[in-house]
């Protein structure tokens, strides 16, 4: 955990008693969670446990029924200009990359800086090229997304997030749609980001990534946070029956 995450600091992301239903289904049950600056929090759990939904509530891609979500101590605004401003400060990387199909790679990365942050085009392009270089796809800058592999597209999506200079980045199962040989290259970029001190909330099934990179692991099941702790504590010595069952079920594969 970084030095900034000391006691008493205002968390970058804080959820207080968040509840959400999809119809009759209670998908988030009294979720309390905070992420400190520079912290890497990994959420794991069986499919349908609500971890993706939790991640999507933080920048209000999903609304909540009750509770409170604060970014840097400020409650999430309602839909509108203020929410757009806030979303510009929180990056999001999606399972299915979601690059803009009609734009080339460079334009995908510069759109936010030029149109949302109103930065000069030239400056935005220069920084975008640096970011593309950092994630290793600078040679693809003038291709369109469909010409890239999944792993390359996801790395571009990460660069698109970084171009906004976000306070934190939410990763919603970033490697789940990738062929196995491409998962490594994306996790590598994410590991570097974590080491550079980026605040990250990662929903994933990649247990090795959680073990190596997370400051804290959160285990969710059936809409609740069942257990949380350091990766060592959680993976070596899970406290709850449900966490033990989950870890056993993935060990068998």
């Amino acid at each position: 955990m970084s030095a900034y995450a000391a006691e008493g600091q205002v968390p970058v992301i804080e959820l207080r008693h968040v509840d959400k239903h999809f119809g009759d289904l209670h998908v988030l049950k009294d979720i309390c969670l905070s992420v400190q600056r520079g912290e890497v929090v990994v959420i794991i759990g069986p499919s349908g446990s609500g971890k993706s939904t939790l991640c999507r509530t933080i920048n209000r891609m999903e609304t909540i029924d009750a509770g409170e979500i604060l970014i840097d101590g400020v409650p999430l605004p309602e839909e509108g200009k203020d929410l757009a401003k806030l979303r510009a400060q929180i990056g999001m990387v999606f399972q299915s990359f979601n690059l803009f199909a009609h734009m080339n790679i460079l334009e995908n990365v510069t759109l936010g800086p030029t149109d949302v942050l109103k930065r000069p085009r030239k400056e935005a392009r220069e920084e975008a090229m640096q970011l593309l270089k950092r994630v290793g796809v600078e040679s693809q800058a003038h291709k369109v997304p469909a010409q890239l592999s999944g792993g390359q597209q996801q790395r571009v999506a990460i660069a698109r997030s970084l171009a906004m200079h976000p306070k934190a980045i939410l990763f919603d199962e970033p490697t789940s749609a990738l062929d196995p040989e491409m998962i490594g290259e994306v996790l590598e970029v994410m590991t570097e980001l974590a080491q550079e001190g980026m605040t990250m909330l990662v929903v994933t099934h990649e247990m090795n990534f959680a073990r190596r990179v997370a400051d804290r692991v959160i285990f969710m099941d059936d809409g609740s946070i069942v257990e949380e702790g350091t990766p060592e504590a959680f993976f070596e010595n899970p406290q709850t029956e449900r966490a033990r069952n989950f870890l056993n079920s993935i060990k068998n594969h």
Partner: protein
Amino acid sequence: MQALLTTWKLTAVAFAIAFVLGVLITVMRVSPLKPLRFFGDFYVQIFRNIPGACLLIILVYAFPYLDIIWSYFTCVLIAASLIPAAFCSEYLMTGINAIPVGQIEAARSIGMTFAQMIRKIVVPQALRSSVLPLTNLLVATMLTTALASQVPLRPADLTGLVAHINTHAVGGVTAFFISAMLYCATAVVIGQIGNLIDKKVRILR
């Protein structure tokens, strides 16, 4: 020759109006404001479902009772643009529905406002994937301008001229045949240009 020019002119202006109107209606139909959405849908339901001839007759013969008198050219233009605008909007809606919802979420996640998202993501993609239907619409708009033959437009459009020849001189059938060939030739040219544009701007998915 004059008549062919009139037809082309009507077609070009009507399509331009229909296109702009169609884009506006479509933006209304996807806007977060319910009254705008309702108006957009209402417009499409009305103008997609009225025969052009009917609309023209209303404009030319009924509107004067409301003290609204427009020139024949204006009336033809209005009839031949309001209806294609409804179809234009329908084609664009199809294009919009083809945009994966994830791209909309991505646009929101980088902090784009609704207006920015429409301008930079939604409209460009919808347009680029609607080139072929819009080409068809341009041809259909041209054929709709044949409505002008129903009113004494001066100079007459292609069908109007032919109808005039048919009633005042011999060789009416030949005249209709020639006009059909001219419509056809124009449509083929439009179709080729449409294909070229489509190849250029088509979005790889």
